[in-house]
């Protein structure tokens, strides 16, 4: 069980190795990436920032909850901060479990709670040179510009 905020690229293969164990029959890797269009506007990049101490605390808490609820300690979450380009992985969640149903459920739980609770913000860069803070409470697509 682990979570982290990163200022470098997420090593997806390393996450899979980290949750790997012969007791597990299913491993889910969720990867959220920066998408090129949000709410009909052409996106060229994204800048992530966080309230660092609280984001770490909330992420840890979510991982602990998922572990208790779905019965596996093999959960790792990493979220990137800083400037990302299109297609870059902004978040990755690796979950391994003896059975696939609980692995899927735990993975889904972590991303949904992360989007609801973790104080991370993204400043979208648009093709016309403007920038705007993403506000999922106002957006037509509540999940923002990634992970759909």
């Amino acid at each position, binding site marked *: 069980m682990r979570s982290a905020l990163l200022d470098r690229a997420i090593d997806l293969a390393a996450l899979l190795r980290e949750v790997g164990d012969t007791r597990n029959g299913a491993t889910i890797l969720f990867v*959220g990436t920066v998408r090129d269009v949000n709410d009909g506007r052409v996106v060229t990049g994204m800048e*992530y*920032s*966080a*309230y660092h*101490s*609280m*984001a770490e*605390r909330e992420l840890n808490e979510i991982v602990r909850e998922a572990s208790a609820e779905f019965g596996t300690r093999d959960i790792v979450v990493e*979220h990137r901060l800083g400037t990302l380009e299109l297609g870059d992985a*902004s*978040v990755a969640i690796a979950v391994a479990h003896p059975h696939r149903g609980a692995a899927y459920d735990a993975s889904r739980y972590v*991303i949904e709670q*992360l*989007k*609801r*609770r*973790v*104080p*991370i*913000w*993204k*400043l979208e860069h648009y093709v016309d040179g403007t920038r705007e*803070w*993403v*506000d*999922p*409470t*106002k957006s037509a697509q509540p*999940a*923002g510009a*990634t*992970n759909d």
Partner: protein
Amino acid sequence: MTVNVLLFASYADKLGTGSLSLDLEPGATVRDLLARVRELPGADRLPHEPLVAVNDRYAKSTQVIASGDEVAIIPPVAGG
């Protein structure tokens, strides 16, 4: 008592700063703190009841703030 208030993302832009130092009466609540913040230039653009965290945890408007607490006003989160 003096309380430090952190602002982030769009809220930091609206108020033109990432942190404030407010002088509050002992026993002041989150609601009292927000009322003080609203007197500042640019704060009229904050929502009526923004999310607030005290010491890294989301707080209710009735929570009493203690001297030395770290208070943060949290814009709609957009991680992922």
